[in-house]
């Protein structure tokens, strides 16, 4: 029982991060109809930027405080993501309006190559660390209830809270602010939004920037946990099954599906894995999503598609 709970907990901790990255995907897809494969590369790029600046700033400006360095580095990284968002809109999106989905998807893969190369050129391709001063050693709770107690990682808790805060902020932003409303309008209907004078271009910059922020936060968290390096790009692949499971256009879908996949893949690996030789985590989430789609082709929360003739 204790072990089961630990597994579920571990899954939830992953799930929160999946949800965060998936959110980035969904926002961009809703607002610009782009299926953004570059999300993973964005995670790496943002994390690299933060890690490196946090390392450089103290040398340049000659101060000690890690916290200060991290804060400024985060700001700079965020600024970079803004520039990136702007560049994407300027140089790519606006030239590809009303292209087919697959063309846009390929374009984002092109972007992926570019920023992979660019990031490594500017920031290097070694392993770098983001030091958030997270406590690494595990704590054991409820030892009275379970033999050996329940293993809880404080850093998991801290980072999960960060991620959830980010998610909450975004949701607020979308519900409460004018820009948020405008974005939702764009998502619902491009033409209509344009006709009431919402500047599509600027909206795209904003969503890509927001997606960039989610990438930065996710990258920061993962970077702090396992070091900032190229492999970060692969983690974001996990967001793909999440978004189709939740429904490409659904923010709550991304969050719920993130948690579902986080938990189920852990349980599957731990309980089913040993029966088939293990390592099934790499495909389980996808197969799960595929099976669900057989019954709900638009995902759990996506809008229903009706054929009209």
């Amino acid at each position, binding site marked *: 029982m204790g*072990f089961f709970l*630990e*597994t579920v907990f*571990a*899954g939830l*901790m*992953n799930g929160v991060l999946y949800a965060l990255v998936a959110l980035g995907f969904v926002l961009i897809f809703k607002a610009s109809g782009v299926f953004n494969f570059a999300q993973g590369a964005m995670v790496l790029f943002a994390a690299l930027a933060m890690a490196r600046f946090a390392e450089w700033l103290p040398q340049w400006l000659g101060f000690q405080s890690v916290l200060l360095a991290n804060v400024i580095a985060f700001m700079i990284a965020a600024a970079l993501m803004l520039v990136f968002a702007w560049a994407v809109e300027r140089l790519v999106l606006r030239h590809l309006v009303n292209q087919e989905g697959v063309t846009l998807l390929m374009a984002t893969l092109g972007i992926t190559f570019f920023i*992979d190369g660019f990031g*490594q050129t500017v920031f290097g*391709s*070694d*392993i770098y*660390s983001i030091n958030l001063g997270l406590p*690494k*050693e*595990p704590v054991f709770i409820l030892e009275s209830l379970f033999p050996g107690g329940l*293993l809880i*990682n404080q*850093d*998991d808790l801290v980072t999960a809270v960060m991620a959830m805060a980010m998610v909450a902020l975004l949701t607020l932003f979308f519900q409460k602010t004018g820009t948020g409303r405008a974005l939702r309008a764009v998502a619902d209907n491009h033409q209509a939004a344009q006709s009431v004078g919402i500047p599509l271009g600027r909206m795209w910059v904003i969503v890509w920037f927001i997606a960039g922020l989610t990438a930065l936060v996710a990258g920061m968290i*993962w970077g702090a*946990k*396992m*070091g900032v*390096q*190229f*492999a*970060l790009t*692969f*983690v974001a692949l*996990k967001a793909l099954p999440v978004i189709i499971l939740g429904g490409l256009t659904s923010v709550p879908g991304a969050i719920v599906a993130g948690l579902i996949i986080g938990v189920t*893949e*852990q349980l599957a*690996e*731990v309980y089913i*894995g*040993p029966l088939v*030789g*293990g*390592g099934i*985590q*790499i495909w389980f989430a996808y197969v799960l999503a595929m099976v669900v789609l057989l019954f709900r082709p638009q995902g759990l929360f996506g809008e229903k598609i009706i054929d009209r003739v």
Partner: protein
Amino acid sequence: MRLRQLALSAALALAAAATALSTGLAMAQTPVQFFPSLTGRTGAVAPNATPFANGYADYMKLVNARGGINGVPTLVEECETAYATDRGVECYERLKGRHGGATVFQPLSTGITFALMPRLATDKIPMITSGYGRSDTADGSIFPWVFPLLGHYWIAGDVVLQHIANKAGGWANLRGKTVAVVYHDSPFGRELLPIVQRRAEMHGFQVLALPVPPPGVEQRAVWLQIRQQRPDFVVMQTWGVMTATAIRQAVATGFPRERMFGTWWSGAEPDLRDIGADARGYNAVMMQHGQARDSEVVRQILAQVHERGQGTGPRTEVGDVLYMRGVVGAMLAVEGVFRAQERFGRGRHVSGEQARWGYENLNITQARLDELGFAGVLRGPIVTSCRNHVGTALTRIHTWNGSGFDWSSDWLQADMNVITRMITASSESFARDNNVTRRTEAGC
């Protein structure tokens, strides 16, 4: 369809141009001994593969500073593969004919190694796969062109288990114990399993095989299982980020690092530096050499290469584990050529085929190693033959002290009685499937 004309001629034109250009670059006037270098300086493998490439290049420069191979200067040209198999093949085809012909290839990547093996015989170019590739290539009478010098995974596995047995107080005490194997879910990773299973049968301990999908950034489930099954020891056949992640997860689930043992690609600075003190106590078996900052050869490289501003990489990494692996790889490559020159003419350029003979007839004595500056780094003699393409089965274990490595074992000799039998069996079946005939001693 007519456009295939365009496509093709475009292909021809472009590629031809490119080849022409880059060959034009090469300085092929004086006879040089060409050592191509397939690098992994970009992408996921960069942190671990870059030091290797730097060490390889630096040692070759040192050889030239020492006056070359009996006067024949060495030349290194790199080609970036990022560990992609098809790019590796392209690099091989690009470099093999350059600068008077490639002496030997050291692909470093398992996938590329496999893809190149069928091409070696026709191109008459040998390949050194120190500590990777297929273990059964140690049987040179079936695999004439492949040289897993200094060790392969079965040696690594055997030694790690020996070490564990010693800790437990003898093989007998392993009975009933559990050894978890956390491995890269790929041919590279699986290569370790046969020896572990063999030993398990012999000594009656349980094996808990835990594959990790590459690149290995997601290991929670694996380490939860370890926490649940509570194995007595964990052996890791991992690479790059997978190693670091594994150790972090061990920290997170409270598995004692002292009972974790990596093989020789799972115990280098890039994997551990970032974890620092938390990784203290983690062990890894080393292909003889480990960190060797204060060795003679490192001193020479610093003095004669880096001092003269010819250093390939940052000065700080010189002497690190993977850097040294590059240095040792280069040394073996060069020594083979020295040996070949003894037979085919001193101070002469040596062809790939002649070099192959050199690698097959190596006899690197301790004296020679000391002379080369490898005293305390490597342990001689390294003697190869037609049947034995490894040369030695001596290894050591080192342990992370929070900032660097300390030796934590004496020299350990893998049990060749066990391994040779496995190798022969495996190479035999390879020979059967691909109807290769075993070379007779005369044929060597």
